[in-house]
């Protein structure tokens, strides 16, 4: 279904070799495992969210697993920022057996440290339900899998159908940058905030950077820049900021005072026209009311460079990992297999009615509502997927260096050149991994 290449820094041939060798070795083990009795015992599950809708889904997953296997599962939820900040200590101490995490470098880093359990044998059983690009995204640097996908979401321009109908604008017809700028000017004339934006959390603006860079300079340059193979002081990056500066007059003025939910409120309260964000916030709209959710629609970010059209998109992958230091890894792996299996966990989560775009091939797209179909269309148009800036580059560079740099740029957009020079020197000064 999705024939994409995940944003990755490892040589694919090496990966495939490793995967093949691993697969052979694991095949033998799984045959033995098939003889062994199913894992049993209590386990714990760590959720990376305390929001209402995702919790509903996860609790349904846990209930379904308990019903099927008879193993008791204790559900531990932590707020997402707190969970992310403490992951290092958490994994070294007494982690839950299975927990929610993200694909990309963030997962590979912990797998490298030996804190994640190898789940390649689980992939042997359920791997056919996922496309190759997801398997690549779930693979660690040593060629083994450490991650089972749950759901994905694209980053795109969201808007409310009712508002656009009232103004008489057709966002689906917007294709390139000039169209888009025209639309923003028209929205401003209507007294709305044309493009809602936030950056108090330090990460929200990374989405805008990602899409502008990928559109102007292409997928390869974007991936190379984040991996350090290209320089931040390159003229192409300065082009990105020149274009970004053109967007500033059309954004709300208090970008640094709003977090993502503040900007989302602008869209929810019909004060803003467009909102660039990952589609996961649809759940928040649904919590507000069904009518609000049904009003939500997405289009891809416009083309800015005909060489690259709209071929790249940020589509982060969320899923599950098994912790090495958990109390009962065997049951953890059994759980993760259930969670990734269409017949088991995926069906349980979809049955809750909370909208979810599952990474599983088996999800019947005919049951997708209009918003999910639009998300799928956005994904399908893109040839390349990236995971998002703070998952595609070194974590000790993304949050401490890029976050504040972008926030500083918002305060003084004319300082782009000096900001980029400083970013490059901070990258150069990073200790070797």
């Amino acid at each position, binding site marked *: 279904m999705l024939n994409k290449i995940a944003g990755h820094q490892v040589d694919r041939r090496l990966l495939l070799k490793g995967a093949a060798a691993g697969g052979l070795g694991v095949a033998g083990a799984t045959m033995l495992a098939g003889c062994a009795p199913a894992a049993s015992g209590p386990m714990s599950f760590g959720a990376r969210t305390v929001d209402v809708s995702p919790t509903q889904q996860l609790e349904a997953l846990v209930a379904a697993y308990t019903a099927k296997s008879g193993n008791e599962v204790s559900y531990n939820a932590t707020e997402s*920022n707190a969970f*992310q*900040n*403490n*992951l*290092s200590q958490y994994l*070294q101490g007494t982690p839950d057996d299975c927990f929610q995490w993200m694909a990309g470098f*963030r997962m590979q*880093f*912990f797998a490298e*440290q*030996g*804190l994640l359990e190898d789940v390649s044998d689980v992939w042997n059983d359920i791997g056919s339900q996922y496309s190759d690009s997801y398997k690549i995204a779930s693979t660690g640097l040593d060629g083994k899998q450490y991650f089972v996908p749950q759901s994905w979401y694209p980053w795109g321009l969201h808007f409310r159908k009712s508002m656009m109908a009232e103004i008489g604008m057709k966002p689906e017809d917007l294709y390139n940058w000039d169209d888009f700028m025209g639309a923003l000017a028209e929205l401003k004339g209507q007294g709305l*905030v044309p493009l*809602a934006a936030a950056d*108090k*959390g*330090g*990460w929200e603006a990374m989405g805008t950077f990602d899409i502008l860079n990928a559109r102007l300079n292409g997928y390869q340059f974007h991936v190379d820049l984040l991996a350090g193979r290209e320089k931040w002081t390159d003229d192409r990056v300065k082009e990105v900021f020149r274009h970004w500066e053109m967007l500033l007059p059309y954004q*709300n*003025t*208090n*970008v*640094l*005072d*709003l*977090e993502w939910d*503040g900007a989302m*409120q*602008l869209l929810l*309260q019909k*004060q*803003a026209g467009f909102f660039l964000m990952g589609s996961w916030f649809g759940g928040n709209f649904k919590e507000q009311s069904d009518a609000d959710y049904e009003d939500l629609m997405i289009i891809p970010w416009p083309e800015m460079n005909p060489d690259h059209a709209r071929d790249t998109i940020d589509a982060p992958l969320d899923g599950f990992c098994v912790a090495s230091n958990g109390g009962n890894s065997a049951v953890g792996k059994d759980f993760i297999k259930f969670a990734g299996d269409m017949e088991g966990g995926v069906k349980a989560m979809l049955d809750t009615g909370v909208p979810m775009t599952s990474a599983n091939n088996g999800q019947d797209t005919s049951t997708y509502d209009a918003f999910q179909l639009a998300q799928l269309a956005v994904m399908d148009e893109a040839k390349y997927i990236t995971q998002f800036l703070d998952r595609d580059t*070194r*974590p*000790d*560079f*993304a*949050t*401490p*260096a890029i*976050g*504040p740099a972008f*926030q*500083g740029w918002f*305060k003084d957009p004319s300082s782009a050149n000096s900001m980029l020079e*400083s970013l490059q*020197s*901070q990258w*150069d*000064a990073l*200790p*070797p991994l």
Partner: protein
Amino acid sequence: MATMTDRPKKSVRRRSFSGRDKVTLSFFIGIPTFLHLALVWFPAFATILLSFTYWTGIRIEDIKWAGLDNYENIFFNTPIFWDALRVNVIWLFWFALIATPLGILLAYQIDREIRGHKFYQTAFYLPVVLSLAVIGVIWNFLLRPDGFVNGALGLPISESVSFFGDDRYNIWVILIIASWRHIGYIMLLYLAGLKAVDMALREAASIDGATEWQTFRKVVFPAMKPVNIIVIVITVVESLRAFDLIYIIYGGSGGLPILGVLVFQNIAGEGASMKGAAYAVILFLLSIVPIIAYLRQQFKEDVK
């Protein structure tokens, strides 16, 4: 301070401790000492040592010697460090020149039992009871773009006053919030100290014709030396140590950079590196040097 009366020379009579006494004492002293060493001294020394290494904090065998690289990185390659330092220094001066003196003034007036002193006492002390985190939550609720103040002013989210985001005044907003608590804290310390000052001293001064200000400067203030030391140490430490407030309002990616948040950003999460330890050492030196200097000066005067 009270002077010691000379004791006639006599042999010091030691109470002899029984075996059980010794065991009890060693438990009472030993366990807290051990905990103190293990939980305070050991991590402190370890932090100082680790600031000279490269490490992600996960596997011990990954520790690599780095020499002064972390410090070089901070001083020459991290522009946000200088912003944070500037904010901390402004914080220190604000506390030292505005917040603490206000607290002292308040304490002095309350001690004089001006009208309504009981009310002021309670009103100013109330914020001290709250932790800085709770204070952050309260003020965040008030000053957010979708918060109470912006709502009262009738401003929609997109046009709200950017209390926390606008660099022109966000630091002053934060300082006022921090002072809200700090003033009450200093006030209480000083009040306790003032109660201990002998009334006779003040009466003597007023008989000699001294004005209030002269009485305070020449009689009361010097008499409060131990409290002064505490107040100054607290002022320095609280301003350099500030973290809770900023963390609650801005999250881990502080929009207003301060050293405490920089330590946290570099130590917590997946981007952990020993740069955080280096920041902690810098913070430690910044706090300890002025305090030691001040204390040395004080005790030198004492000896004289």
